[in-house]
């Protein structure tokens, strides 16, 4: 078959057919993938909470609480298993070297730090990014500690028992500060078993 001539009707018709076909296909595939996409998004949202908290089967977001600490207001997500409080995740932040460091901290009901997840940071790669577990052991210092008897401050500053990342005192300070804030919020939030 020879090439179609480029007259107006031909062009219009072709384009209409092409667009019709592809839009139909797209709409169809959209319907197909809608569910997985939503699942993925939900997973992404809850992943951090899942990591930092012990097992839970409630909807921590549904039970979120906002607590004011100083000038800031922090979000607290309690995790419960069969209505028993297993842990509390606190979203917190403090200004580091390159910008705000946002952490999600999982506390056990007794206030012990279980896990810390870095949600977002802008620290220098190679220096401040050692707050990531994949980059250094710095964050491990906090696990299993209870801020009640573990002084959240940089040892070098004489302010506490945390060994700073070398050459990243500011980041380390900010990290400690954020954790402290989260702990304060936790205390203030007074989340109890239901």
């Amino acid at each position, binding site marked *: 078959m020879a090439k179609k001539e480029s007259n107006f009707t031909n062009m219009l018709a072709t384009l209409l057919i092409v667009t019709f076909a592809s839009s139909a296909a797209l709409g169809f595939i959209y319907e197909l993938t809608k569910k997985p996409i939503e699942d993925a998004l939900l997973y992404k949202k809850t*992943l951090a909470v899942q990591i930092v908290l012990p097992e839970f089967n409630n909807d921590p977001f549904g039970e979120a609480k906002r607590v004011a600490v100083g000038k800031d207001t922090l979000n607290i997500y309690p995790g419960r298993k069969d209505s028993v409080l297993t842990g509390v995740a606190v979203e917190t932040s403090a200004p580091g070297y390159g910008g705000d460091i946002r952490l999600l901290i999982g506390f056990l009901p007794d206030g012990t730090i279980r896990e810390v997840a870095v949600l977002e940071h802008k620290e220098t*790669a190679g220096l401040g990014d050692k707050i990531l577990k994949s980059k250094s052991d710095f964050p491990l210092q906090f696990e299993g500690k209870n801020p009640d008897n573990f002084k959240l401050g940089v040892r070098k500053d004489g302010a506490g028992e945390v060994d700073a990342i070398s050459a990243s005192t500011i980041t380390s300070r900010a990290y400690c500060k954020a954790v402290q804030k989260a702990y304060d919020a936790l205390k203030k939030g007074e989340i109890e078993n239901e």
Partner: protein
Amino acid sequence: MNNLKNFTKGFIKENPVLVLFLGLCPTLGTSNSAINGLSMGLATTFVLVLSNVVISSISRFIPDKVRIPSYIVVIASFVTVVDFMMKAYLNTPGKNFEPSIYDQLGIFIPLIVVNCIVLGRAEAFASKNGVFASLIDGLGMGLGFAFALFMLGSVRELLGNGSILGFKFIKGDGMLMFVSPPGAFLALGFLIMLMRKLNQKLAKN
């Protein structure tokens, strides 16, 4: 034979990135690690193959003047499909909250539409050749693209992070410059130079 040639030429002799300099934006933007480069390459290959197939089968019916817009619609649809797929299945963040592959590739997924390779192949090859040949061509070119991205990604990951595909070869960080934007340009520059030398050698023999 011919098909085989069509398939292999995309790797070295007519590598879209390293020799023809097509699709440079995604190459630079998504090659900070081997896995990202590879994913982007495969996503592009997917679009390339399917759009090549579709276009080669419909090109006879399309008047010349609306050729390009029709191709664009076809390509854009496949891109959107890839987007859906990746959003659904490659959107899991890593254990340490490394962004998911989908997030890392970011803007470059929709930009596959304007990747010169895709439209270029549609125009230059698929619209003139049969379905099977177009498929082979798309596959070859796409894999060539993926190959280049993977190479670049590996080089950058190795130099910048001391690892390839996440497997650590050296302790600690590498030269972080290579995983930051300037490193992309530098690494690609040298890679192209090496490719040029290689091709010259090949041509001599």
